[in-house]
């Protein structure tokens, strides 16, 4: 049995959640104050996800802030960042515009600012 200690980040309360694991099975979850905390902790020990935010450059050198429109696996972050940096964009860009379709697990790369 292994106990994983996590801080729930779903809201500013920041509950300390403990997940008791046996191998890859979750035996017990404690310390959360609401169901979001339980879900967060469960997801976090099985397959932690993160939204990636960064910037890319247009061909004429403008800086465009971007994000994945869904959380993506944390373990793939480094590879995805490299893939994002290689995305080529041009012309007027609108907030919400898809710059790269299905980066991974159905998440698109979108612009977060009019540029």
């Amino acid at each position: 049995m292994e106990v994983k200690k996590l801080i729930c980040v779903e809201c500013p309360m920041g509950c300390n959640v403990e997940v008791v694991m046996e191998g890859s099975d979750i035996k017990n979850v404690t310390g959360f104050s609401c169901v979001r905390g339980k879900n967060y902790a469960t997801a976090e020990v099985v397959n932690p996800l993160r939204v990636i935010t960064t910037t890319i450059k247009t061909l004429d050198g403008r800086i465009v802030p971007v994000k994945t429109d869904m959380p993506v696996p944390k373990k793939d972050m480094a590879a995805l960042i490299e893939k994002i940096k290689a995305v080529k964009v041009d012309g007027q860009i609108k907030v919400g515009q898809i710059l790269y379709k299905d980066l991974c697990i159905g998440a698109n790369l979108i612009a977060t600012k009019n540029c």
Partner: protein
Amino acid sequence: MKHDIVIIGAGPAGLAAACQAYDSGVKDIVILEREPHLGGILNQCIHNGFGLKRFGQSLTGPEYAQRYIDMVLERGIKVYTETTVLSLTDNKVITAISPTEGLFYIEAKAVILAMGCRERSRGALNIPGTRPAGVYSAGTAQKYVNIFGRMPGKEVVILGSGDIGLIMARRMTVEGARVHAVAEIMPHSSGLKRNIVQCLDDFDIPLYLNHTITKIEGKDRVEGVVISQVDQNKKPILGTEKHFKCDTVLFSVGLIPENELTKKAGVTLDRATRGAVVDQTRETSISGVFACGNVLQVHDLVDYVSEESAIAGRFAAEYVLNGKRDKQTVKLSAGENVSYVLPQQIDKGLDGNVKLFFRVTKTLNNCTIRGLSGEKEVFAIKKRVVVPGEMETVILPKEKIELIDGGLTVTICD
């Protein structure tokens, strides 16, 4: 020129105040903004986590700003960009300067101060050593990376665990830099837990609590830093020095409300918040002058800035429509383990609940927040945990406000 409401600053506070003032019935509103763009500091905060309370979804800074920019533009509210306000008088005359208008004056019926805050500078910290290139505030580094697309350096040490420092630890790592350490002089982080987890833990960046930078090395460019552990009196302990080779030092040691204009106008300031003293309508000591957002108190979340600014916008509009109110104010003060309470005054003559914002001076578990008026307990609320890095709030219903006699002191005890 003359306008009903003049708002100084088009960051999240100014934009939210403008929309609410408009929706409360005043249409003659202008916003004055120093920068060429609207949205303020949100434009360089490209990370997500904004808007969870306000919009029920996690937005990036530019996205959050865009929602309010659109709301302001839909309402046809006039904005002067690249316009610097030089002064404000106690009878609400504003002197400003802009490339298109030159020097101009505005007589306002009501003014909303929404200038935000600035970063505490390194000079205030008195660190021994040379003054090489490569030392930045975290916010300056953020502007370089996110707006100009330039990296300030490759090997980084960060002093202070404020949210911008934590965010920049992640940001510079994503851009290929190596962040060796974050040193925090306090025994706790001053940033949000979410940022500790997702900006430091995710990238295995060590956080040294009770540590500070004791030396910066390098003549032309930073070559390294020494960090040391500190004792209870924040004095470095000899023999605990750790050396890091680095080319960049970032400082994230707190924010200060930007109140030069406010001070010169003669508005009474609170020494604890460094912002104006206000009542629950966010009206300052000068009648018809309101303040909201980070110029009033440094918030953790932009969502709270929007919420507070809507209050200022609504009451600024009421001031224009109905004129000056007679007030029956009672004073609020910070008691044990509380560093400040905002608003600092409550006008008992007004209807409605009042939301109190305050910060604690240390982490407390299983504690009770009490509001005391003399010997009388006005409210008592149990909390599992309070931390200095996160603002606390209590909603004071009208019937509790009625119980306040003279003043109210907010305390927190185990």
